[in-house]
């Protein structure tokens, strides 16, 4: 069987490809530095998401996982085992973050993947202890918790990256920088649409063997009513923001990032159509109104944990000349060119950055900015009469490559490169707050069945 040394040598040889995306010199994620530039890292929370992040960090050079923390002994064993397997070093493990911070010296960074209601306290403690922090999104279960994280980051002078990992995904950065802004293939973006739909069978309670139940005094100490709540904290209002936070936050962040704006209002609805005993809604639909430099945009978002209908998770930006539907899942990514380019609206506000309308999609294909899909099939029309109700089918295109590393890895690479002073954070806590702030008002809008028009105070730190 292969041993660890052989394994590392094998993976090193194949690691160079990293990302694969066409077009010359358009994107670059920062170098992650030399292995000798060691960073001592603490893992705070090693449940499912903590393990996803660990898998994404395993191939980043120079990281030394010094200590791990989780209130569940079972998760601590997994964390210790994963670190031991990776670096032949058994890290010290802690139930309590205060003990970790008091005892562990020389830490450079903490990676936090605890339940949402612990994000803010844990992040603030780590920043105050002088650590740089990578914290999973949603920043907090409350907007005030998120505000505290921004203040702690700025007061400490340390770095705090929030886990909106698409912000570092080269596919997303390429799409925004080169296709939407650089070549304006959408024309004027007038609408956006996104979803994360999951089947009921993928939304069940998380199971555990009874023998692993945490003692009640420990559960109570850390804010959990019982083991079920500990395992399924995402379903409880005091512990998380629910599906709109768990899943929707990623994609509403893309709305705000790609549109270069924050919404001016939200109108949401939600309910418990299937999981009637859960505190949080099992389905939420939200409408956001934006004023962007290009004009008004309305964005619709839905998160359904009750059906996978509609093809999983993606974000779509619909413009007068084209539509980009993008996802972390490359199979869902699609780009469409309107069959008939829109005539220029003489009354439209002038965009100072507007390019001459010499856009040639063929040229973009030739230059490797786009791939071309098969030509659309035009349905025969009875009697040769054109159906005026139907637009001509759009021509399909694709992004020219895909990421061949875990989706969280580029964002973590960006974080650690920033800690080394070799890059700038792609999603620091302040920028994350600006994008997340409107999301905190989705559930209140749905509960009150009222639209909420944001005030500057609501969306500011």
């Amino acid at each position, binding site marked *: 069987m292969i041993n660890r040394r052989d394994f*590392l040598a094998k993976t090193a040889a194949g690691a160079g490809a990293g990302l694969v995306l066409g077009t010359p010199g358009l*994107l670059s994620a920062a170098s992650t530095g030399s292995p000798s530039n060691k960073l001592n890292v603490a893992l705070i929370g090693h449940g499912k998401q903590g393990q996803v992040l660990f*898998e994404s960090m395993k*191939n980043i*050079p120079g*990281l030394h996982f010094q200590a791990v923390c989780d209130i569940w002994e079972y998760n601590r064993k997994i964390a210790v085992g994963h670190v031991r397997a990776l670096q032949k070093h058994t890290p010290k493990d802690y139930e309590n973050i205060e003990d970790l911070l008091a005892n562990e010296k020389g830490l450079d960074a903490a990676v936090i993947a605890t339940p949402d209601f612990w994000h803010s306290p844990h992040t603030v403690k780590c920043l105050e202890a002088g650590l740089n922090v990578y914290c999973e999104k949603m920043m907090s279960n409350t907007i005030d918790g998120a505000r505290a994280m921004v203040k702690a980051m700025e007061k400490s002078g340390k770095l705090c990256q929030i886990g909106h990992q698409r912000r570092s995904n080269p596919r997303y950065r390429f799409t925004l920088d080169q296709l939407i802004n650089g070549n304006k293939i959408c024309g004027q973006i007038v609408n956006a649409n996104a979803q994360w739909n999951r089947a009921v069978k*993928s939304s069940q309670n998380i199971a555990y063997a009874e023998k692993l139940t945490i003692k009640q005094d420990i559960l109570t100490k850390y804010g959990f009513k019982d083991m079920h709540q500990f395992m399924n904290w995402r379903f409880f209002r005091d512990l998380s923001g629910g599906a709109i936070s768990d899943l929707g936050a990623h994609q509403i962040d893309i709305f705000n990032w790609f549109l270069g704006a924050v919404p001016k209002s939200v109108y949401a609805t939600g309910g418990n159509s299937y999981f009637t005993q859960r505190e949080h809604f099992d389905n939420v639909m939200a409408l956001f109104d934006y004023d962007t430099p290009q004009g008004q945009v309305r964005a619709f978002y839905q998160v359904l944990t009750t059906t996978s209908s509609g093809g999983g998770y993606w974000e779509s930006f619909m413009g007068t000349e084209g539509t980009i539907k993008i996802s972390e899942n490359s199979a869902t990514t699609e780009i469409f060119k309107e069959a008939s380019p829109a005539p220029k609206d003489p009354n439209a506000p002038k965009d100072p950055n507007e390019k001459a309308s010499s856009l040639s999609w063929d040229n973009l294909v030739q230059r490797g900015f786009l791939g071309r899909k098969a030509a659309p099939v035009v349905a025969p029309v009875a009697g040769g009469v054109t159906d005026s109700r139907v637009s001509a089918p759009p021509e399909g295109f694709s992004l020219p490559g895909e990421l061949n590393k875990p989706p969280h890895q580029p964002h973590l690479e960006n974080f650690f490169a920033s800690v080394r002073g070799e890059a700038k954070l792609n999603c620091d806590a302040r920028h994350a707050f600006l994008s997340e702030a409107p999301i905190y008002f989705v559930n209140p809008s749905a509960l009150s069945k009222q639209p909420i028009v944001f005030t500057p105070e609501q969306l500011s730190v």
Partner: protein
Amino acid sequence: MKHKLIVSILAASSALFITGCGDNKKPTGATAASGATSGGTVGGVALALNYPPELIEGTPKAMNVPNLVQPPDKDPVFLVPKEAVLLSKDKKVTGSDDNPIIGDLKLITDGDKQAGEGYFVELLEGPQWVQIDLEKSAAVNAVCVWHYHSQKRAYKGVVIQVSDDPKFAATATTTIYNNDYENVTKLGKGSDNPYVESRFGLIADGKGAKGRYVRLYSNGNTSNEMNHYIEVEVYGVPQ
């Protein structure tokens, strides 16, 4: 750590594209496994397996392996001789990684096939094996494997062998299943297709291979590099 990962942007003309994205196949039936809709011993009786409930968690990961067989949508029917019995319950399990990251090798034959935390053993990355001692030689008709079924994923380099030799010398070993299309286990390239884990697991046709020991290999999975087992059940006729 010597290896270096660089996010590289390549010119489109020279871009390295990732292909073979789950060239999905429907269940084929025959000998194989997850997705077997029929198979086993001609004239035999249907193997009565107790399938665990379905429980899927989290966001699925891409499964970039070729010829991927999708799980069945109903209980597979697999035939075994009427004399066949469960041979592996609570039998001793050993392995190439004697210090599992989480769990215990005993979980593999404890009879509990549930998904969720605490029901599986996790072994180190790279090719690893576990071995069940049936205590007596038997004619093995079916080896049923549940690696991990709370996420859609495919395990790589899955090879199942039967032998009376605890060292599995090649001359005394029968390979009953092999989807190691890359030959990472160095046991020879296999012709069975990788499959998506599900609550139905894998049913490998033993075809009456004789042996006291059953050894199962794997080489990580499409979600991470580790190797997992929830349960293995060996059915056959004692000799």
